[in-house]
């Protein structure tokens, strides 16, 4: 039996995993990252458009601060987020971006003087102030009141990931590449590490750790068309689910991005619209102002994706061999701007579509993009159900996104959660001793080994590629942008029978070492379990909130559904997840439930909402001299690791 001992084990080498590893290492802990691929190839690199942080240096960001970022994030989430976590996030985001600035990210900067931008299809002159010259600038993104999305051209994720990985290399953090965690080791109360399969040799190793962090990204590849990298299959979340103890949160909350290219589903950044790009229909008509007069193309992603789908359903889509699509028009931004700030988009258009976006429209369609759901954690990033198990980034339901994430808040979450959760992981490692029976390690090691033996020896004949593709089609057809009872029931029953079939996979290639078919055979049953948590969660949630949109229940129902879905998979042989619900406490919300100001949904009120609005008024009135920090402390007190406390400075404003 191969065993490796460490203090802090991190599964996943993207931005969140790297940042947590850095925090562990900086605290003097032995730290190992296990990753499917070299860290710099992680899906974090795909974040093109930027990272939200309320620095307020650019003239269109003036007046921005944590409070405005907080309100945008809560509205974006359709009040489905944990407001404590959203607060921790917005207050720390400026620190995260400034840390990355010292670690080498070449953030695009404010240039003093006049510049011309496109706003609402018109050329507008902006004059940047002298005193902001050289500070980190920001662009516009959907669902935000201010221009808050900091960027490096449209390679933001790339530069962040490179700076972060370089820092990890400087600290000597080992990344064990081409390895896959296939099971967590636990005793029902404590997580002790993971069983890891080497994707080259096929050998299993037990990694034993005080703290285990899952930072494996989202589960976009449950869908047949996704912007996600092909490795985003949710296996990290799945091994947490398979403990039978840890819960996954809000798995039905799945975001569709408005502008992925047709047919391959590669993303073109929201920065296209943030910088002034427009959506057009088959007649070349700009339709979004008709649906969303205020935010137009820059409403939140869930809203824009639904409006586009509505418009296509009205017959206004552009027919193609791959189904109807719409046009993204960035021609009005001009060659110079596209060459400099949207060059990845330009490359994608050239290579995959053979078009020049300076002159031609881009064929786009809403496409699966982001997983709001994931391993349910408390605000410290730890599973409330399994001690020593942490999660951060897209794989987690830390829950700052609720039912819809804002553009620019995902890479921001990875590094902010990485900083915050990283400190709590290190605390946990310092405060806890490693106590584990070797018989427990052996039990999990042997179990996983036997499963692989069975797969290789099996004489069954179900084809794993076929099963996977059927699952992806079921999710695409029935658990998409618009959902209803009939489709969701069909999805659940189809997935159930698929799960049974997945227990009878037969391999053509019986090699135990590197074997792509075996990799699929290990993953696909896990993926179907996740798909069931998504489909079943969506079926049970009889309301529409954020990205979860039920045609048969179009209202946001705060009365009955202001709650988080928790999914458990109690026994390996079960065919369905067990769902539980956790109330969101309105009476401790900093921002009482209200309309988002876009999306035009009706709301069924909760009786506590009125009560909370009154409370907030009274607290504010009773403290007339309190500044915004004191008011926040009264309405929504949060805890942060000591080194991340402290107010954030802004140009022209100081620490106010």
């Amino acid at each position, binding site marked *: 039996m191969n065993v490796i001992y460490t203090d802090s084990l991190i599964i996943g080498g993207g931005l969140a995993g790297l940042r947590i590893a850095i925090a562990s290492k900086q605290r003097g802990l032995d730290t190992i990252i296990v990753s499917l*691929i*070299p860290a*710099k*190839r*992680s899906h974090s*690199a*795909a974040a093109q458009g930027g990272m939200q942080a309320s620095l307020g240096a650019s003239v269109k960001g003036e007046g921005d601060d944590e409070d405005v970022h907080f309100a945008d994030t809560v509205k974006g989430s359709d009040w489905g987020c944990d407001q404590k976590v959203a607060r921790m996030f917005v207050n720390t985001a400026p*620190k995260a*971006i*400034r840390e990355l*600035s*010292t*670690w*080498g990210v*070449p*953030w*695009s*900067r404010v*240039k003093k003087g006049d510049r011309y931008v496109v706003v609402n299809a018109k050329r507008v002159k902006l004059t940047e102030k002298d005193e902001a*010259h*050289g*500070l980190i600038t920001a662009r516009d993104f959907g669902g935000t009141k201010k221009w808050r999305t900091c960027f*490096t*051209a449209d*390679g933001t994720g790339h*530069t962040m990931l*490179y700076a972060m990985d*370089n*820092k990890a290399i*400087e600290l000597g953090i080992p990344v064990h*590449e*081409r390895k896959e965690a296939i099971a967590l080791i636990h005793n029902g109360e404590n997580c002790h590490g993971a069983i890891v399969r080497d994707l080259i040799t096929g050998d299993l190793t037990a990694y034993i750790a005080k703290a285990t962090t899952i930072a494996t990204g989202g589960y976009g590849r449950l869908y047949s068309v996704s912007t996600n990298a*092909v490795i985003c299959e949710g296996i990290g979340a799945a091994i947490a689910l398979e403990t039978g103890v840890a819960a996954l949160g809000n798995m039905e909350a799945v975001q569709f991005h408005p502008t992925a290219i047709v*047919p*391959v589903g590669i993303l073109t950044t929201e920065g296209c619209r943030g910088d002034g790009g427009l959506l057009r229909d088959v007649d070349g008509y700009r339709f979004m102002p008709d649906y969303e007069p205020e935010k137009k193309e820059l409403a939140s992603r869930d809203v824009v994706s639904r409006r586009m789908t509505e418009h296509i359903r009205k017959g206004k889509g552009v027919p*193609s*061999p791959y189904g109807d699509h719409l046009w993204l028009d960035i021609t009005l931004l001009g060659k110079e701007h596209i060459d*400099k700030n949207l060059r990845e988009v330009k*490359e994608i258009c050239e*290579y*995959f*579509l*053979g*078009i020049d976006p300076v002159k031609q*429209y881009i*064929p786009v369609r809403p496409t699966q993009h982001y997983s709001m759901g994931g391993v349910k954690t408390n605000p410290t990033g730890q599973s409330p159900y399994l001690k020593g198990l942490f999660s951060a980034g897209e794989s987690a339901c830390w829950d700052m996104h609720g039912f819809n994430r804002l553009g620019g808040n995902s890479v921001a979450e990875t590094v902010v959660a990485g900083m915050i959760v990283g400190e709590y992981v290190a605390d946990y490692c310092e405060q806890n001793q490693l106590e584990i029976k070797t018989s427990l390690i052996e039990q999990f090691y042997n179990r996983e080994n036997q499963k692989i033996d069975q797969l290789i020896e099996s004489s069954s004949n179900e084809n794993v*590629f076929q099963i996977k593709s059927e699952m992806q089609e079921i999710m695409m057809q029935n658990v998409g942008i618009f959902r209803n009872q009939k489709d969701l029931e069909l999805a659940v029953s189809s997935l159930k029978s698929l799960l049974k079939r997945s227990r009878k996979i037969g391999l053509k*290639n019986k090699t135990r*070492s*590197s*074997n*792509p*078919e075996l990799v699929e055979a290990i993953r696909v049953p896990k993926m179907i379990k996740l798909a069931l948590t998504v489909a079943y969660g969506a079926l049970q949630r009889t309301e529409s909130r954020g990205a979860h949109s039920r045609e048969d229940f179009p209202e946001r129902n705060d009365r009955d559904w202001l709650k988080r879905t928790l999914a458990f998979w109690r026994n390996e042989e079960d065919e369905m997840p067990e769902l539980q619900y956790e109330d969101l406490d309105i009476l401790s919300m900093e921002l009482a439930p209200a309309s988002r100001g876009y999306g035009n949904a009706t709301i069924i009120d909760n009786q506590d909402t009125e009560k909370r609005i009154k409370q907030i008024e009274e607290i504010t009135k009773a403290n007339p001299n309190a500044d915004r920090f004191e008011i926040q402390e009264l309405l929504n007190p949060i805890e942060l690791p000591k080194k*991340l406390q*402290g*107010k*954030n*400075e*802004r*140009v022209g404003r100081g620490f106010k």
Partner: protein
Amino acid sequence: MRQEQQNGRKLKFHILRFNPQIEGDKPKMVTYELTEALGMTVFIALNQIREQHDPSLQFDFVCRAGICGSCAMVINGKPDLACRTLTSKFPKGEITLLPLPAFELIGDLSVNTGKVMRAVSERIEGWIHDKNMGEIDLTKMEVTMDPDLADNIYELERCVECGCCLAACGTKRMRDDFLGAVGFMKVARFLMDTRDKRTEEDMYEIIGDDDGIFGCMSLMGCEDFCPKDLPHQHQIAYLRRKMVTVK
């Protein structure tokens, strides 16, 4: 608007097959046939071959959008990113795929670029060197940077570590210790960055020898085959000039 293609054309893929994990396995070329579809890339084709013809076929894709650098291979004699190579590019419909040379072979078309790239970063110490960094107060405003300088650094940081430059490098193929264009580009990037306090003398210690900048034979395969069109020729010339004046 989409480019015209011969839908339904028969494609022939000639692929190097070899699995060093299996004792006694010998390298061989195997041909697979499949039907071209509209917009087909080598990524789509290889997955079809794996799913329909041979599930043991090894290759590496992650982003499949030309940004992660995982999938470089030799396509009809030239190193390139497989994910964004359209099959329609090849009028004869014959496509030969070989693994990238200059890297350890994992199996078939999969090579270990990660190990090499980490070693490159360690060798040139590819991170910001600043003795005062530990004392930076994150509540304060960031240090300003010239906007053009920030843009220029990004131009050099667009490298995705795909390995095409090393595979196409004459010196690298003869001398394994040669740093190669990927390393030079990183050195140029950190030398340009005012946040990195290292001097040209410091960089000389890293690249001022025949395994470094003076080993380059100026064949410029790196410039010719960089999928990100990075200015290798310019930066290598610049570094060589700088390094000659040190000492």
